[in-house]
């Protein structure tokens, strides 16, 4: 009964920080900052990712200001980094820029799938942890790698459901369930979420939170999808705590046979 959930007191705690929302939001892909701000509000998210890129003197509107107004905590990512070295430097720059030692660590090993590069990821995680960072690594759905990352001291693990932006959902739910068993830190399902049912499934599998980016920002109506994701995460969390019935091949009648009327052969004569 460890997963019993009280909807009013249920908080997610990562590295000592407690959040009421179990939905993390990516800020990439929104058509405008206004729509992004509306979607953040609709999602209820308290932790949102940002990337670090070269200053564009022609850029209009300040993302940092909009996010500060939204009252959310920033989770800088190292998106686009292909080596441990680049990821570590990017994390250090993000710490300077955003005054947070939290980092969503991404080290990409392949351009087409954007899958993580496991050896580089471990190397970068180790170096950043030594440097005092709170590291949330984006990882594959490999339970062994997740355990290695947790053993190093990562504050959470963020296994993918399927490749970033693919909307393919959770391709290996059994691995996600194994990861939940393999580590003691929060498990945040990251990448691959396509729609609300994917987020609910992640929570039903025992994930502690879900991260959604493209699924919301590139939906036809991002604000409505943000609302849907929020409801799905809450529903999945409650269902996990409620304890689902086992799957069976054959039916189990939900109405008892006891007291069932008997009509003799007369009924057959009618047909």
């Amino acid at each position, binding site marked *: 009964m460890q997963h019993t959930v009280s909807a009013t007191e249920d908080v997610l705690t990562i590295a000592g920080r407690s959040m009421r929302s179990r939905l993390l939001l*990516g*800020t*990439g*892909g*929104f058509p405008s900052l206004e729509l*992004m701000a509306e979607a953040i509000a609709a999602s209820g998210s308290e932790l949102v*990712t*940002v*990337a*670090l*890129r*070269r*200053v564009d*003197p022609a850029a209009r509107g*300040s*993302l*940092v*200001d909009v*996010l*500060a107004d939204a009252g959310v905590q*920033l*989770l*800088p*990512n190292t*998106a686009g980094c292909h080596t441990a070295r680049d990821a570590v*430097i990017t994390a*250090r*720059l*993000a710490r*300077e*820029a*955003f005054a947070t030692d939290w980092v*969503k660590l*991404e080290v990409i090993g392949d351009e087409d799938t954007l899958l993580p590069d496991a050896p580089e990821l471990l190397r970068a995680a180790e170096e950043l942890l030594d440097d005092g960072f709170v590291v949330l690594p984006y990882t594959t759905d490999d339970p062994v790698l997740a355990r290695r990352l947790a053993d190093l001291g990562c504050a959470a693990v963020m296994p993918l459901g399927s490749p970033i932006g693919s909307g393919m959902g959770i391709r290996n739910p059994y691995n996600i369930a194994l990861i939940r068993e393999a580590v003691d830190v929060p498990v945040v399902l990251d990448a691959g979420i396509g729609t609300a049912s994917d987020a609910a499934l992640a929570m039903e599998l025992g994930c502690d939170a879900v991260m959604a*980016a493209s699924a919301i920002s590139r939906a036809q109506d991002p604000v409505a999808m943000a609302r849907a994701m929020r409801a799905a995460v809450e529903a999945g969390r409650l269902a996990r705590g409620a304890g689902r019935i086992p799957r069976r091949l054959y039916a189990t009648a939900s109405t008892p046979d006891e007291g069932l009327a008997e009509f003799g052969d007369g009924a057959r004569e009618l047909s």
Partner: protein
Amino acid sequence: MILLNGERSDVRAGESVAAVLVRLGLDVDARGVAVAVDGEVVPRASWESFTVGEDARVEVLTAMQGG
């Protein structure tokens, strides 16, 4: 030649990081900005005193939507 965000620039050796930021239209107290010179982070507290050398590679970064 000093490279500023990957492009040839007329930044001269001996200019401070703060001066480079002004060239980009940024305040020295701008939120959400970080600077690396030759792959090393230049902490905010050193922006006025840190000067760029010959052939330095200066990266000035800020928040962008992502992830």
